[in-house]
């Protein structure tokens, strides 16, 4: 057991706080671009409202508008794409990707004020992004989504992609995982041996090395195969690119995972994730797709484990930390930059911050726990034979 120190204090009172009523400023991934290019409009519930995504027929470009038509409130997601415009199902008002009314077939003229909100979009890595800013400004220089070369290369698999809606939790819960080394052992059954965070500007990175857990079967753990090295960065408030290198026999398998979300309401968000795997020499497209699907399944299992915790936990603004925990407060200080007005973003939120955990104690204790689990399994097997 750990040593206790200090004087006797009263019980700690949890400050649950209230989730923020505003939504983060930044690029938010809505999904794979190809999934929106089927000739139909798509409704997205996000940022406390509804959006509609549609592809202009002429230009082929994806556009995002407010879903509700400013004429009489019809839902454009139930409408029809007509040329480069989206037609409302209620009265056939036509809306262009720039938000201007492109025509009202039954009217002599289009009212001068006929504009709806067009959301700034970006297609990168074969995914669609939308820019959200409560102040209505453009993305600052340098705040963009980095290109992932594997997404455009025949040497890599295609994206796998999954969507999961989480109700009853604010999206800060998933961002907290960036610094939470110990939960990787207890929730995800992996075995971190190295763990470091760096926050700088709008990026938060987690550097981690983890080993497989010998007391877990492949189905129980994210890193069943061999030693795994991971470099995972949030580029802004919601889009994480995770580069993984896994030792499998003599080979190193390279994987890119995406973990991203967009908020639906203060207490609901949509989690999306997917994987790309680099083909090993001699690997066919089918085998690469299978490897990506396997990586994706590992991710899916991991998120289900997180969701099981989120479903029954409380929001906590004042976590009680021990000496081997990651920098939760500094992560939240970094995350705060996306929730304040741009002119309120302070240097303390964006100045580079590095935190390398001393994993020595955790590794010793965890190794003993794994050994004990293996021993009791051996005992059970022996008893079964006798």
């Amino acid at each position, binding site marked *: 057991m750990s040593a206790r120190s200090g004087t006797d204090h009263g019980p700690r009172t949890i400050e649950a706080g209230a989730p923020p009523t505003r939504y983060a400023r930044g690029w938010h991934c809505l999904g794979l671009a190809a999934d929106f290019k089927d000739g139909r409009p798509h409704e997205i519930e996000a940022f406390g409202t509804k959006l509609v995504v549609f592809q202009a027929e002429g230009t082929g470009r994806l556009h995002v508008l407010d879903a509700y038509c400013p004429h009489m409130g019809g839902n454009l997601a139930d409408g029809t794409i007509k040329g480069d415009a989206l037609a409302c199902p209620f009265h056939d008002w036509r809306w262009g990707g720039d938000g201007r009314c492109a025509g009202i077939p039954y009217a002599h003229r289009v009212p001068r004020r006929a504009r709806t909100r067009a959301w700034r979009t970006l297609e990168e890595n074969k995914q669609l992004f939308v820019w959200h800013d409560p102040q209505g400004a453009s993305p600052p220089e340098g705040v963009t989504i980095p290109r992932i070369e594997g997404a455009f290369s025949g040497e890599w698999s295609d994206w796998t992609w999954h969507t999961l809606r989480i109700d009853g939790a604010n999206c800060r819960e998933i961002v907290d995982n960036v610094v939470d080394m110990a939960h990787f052992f207890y929730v995800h059954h992996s075995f971190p041996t190295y763990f470091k965070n760096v926050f700088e500007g709008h990026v938060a*990175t987690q550097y981690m090395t983890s080993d497989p857990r010998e007391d877990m079967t492949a189905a129980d753990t994210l890193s069943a195969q061999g030693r795994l090295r991971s470099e995972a960065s949030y580029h802004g408030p919601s889009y994480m690119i995770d580069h993984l290198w896994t030792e499998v026999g003599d080979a190193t398998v390279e994987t890119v995972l995406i973990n991203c979300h967009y908020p639906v309401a203060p207490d609901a968000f949509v989690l999306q994730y997917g994987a790309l795997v680099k083909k090993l020499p001699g690997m066919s497209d089918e085998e690469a797709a299978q490897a990506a699907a396997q990586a994706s399944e590992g991710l899916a299992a991991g998120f289900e484990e997180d969701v099981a915790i989120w479903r029954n936990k409380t929001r906590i603004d004042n976590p009680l930390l021990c000496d081997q925990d990651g*920098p939760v407060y500094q992560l939240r200080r970094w995350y705060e930059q996306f929730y304040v007005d741009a002119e309120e973003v302070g240097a303390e939120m964006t100045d580079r911050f590095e*935190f390398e955990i001393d994993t020595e104690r955790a590794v010793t204790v965890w190794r003993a726990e794994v050994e004990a689990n293996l021993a009791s399994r051996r005992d059970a097997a022996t008893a079964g034979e006798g």
Partner: protein
Amino acid sequence: MLEPVTCTTCGTQVLVEKRSLPHTTVQWTSPTTRCPELAGCAPAGVAVCTRLRASIEEALREGRLRVTGGDG
């Protein structure tokens, strides 16, 4: 407790805490523009500046920085 440490290569001063020998906290209070290893790199795209790390280790050896053993 964070203590100031100045990098012997570029002269940038950062705040450092060593709770134990393997643990390190580095809080920058200025941009990384003078750092020969980090300047121009993607933000949070490089885990460590090895020269700053060497300066921290030197400060520890010379007793200008102490292991605190503190909590989170």
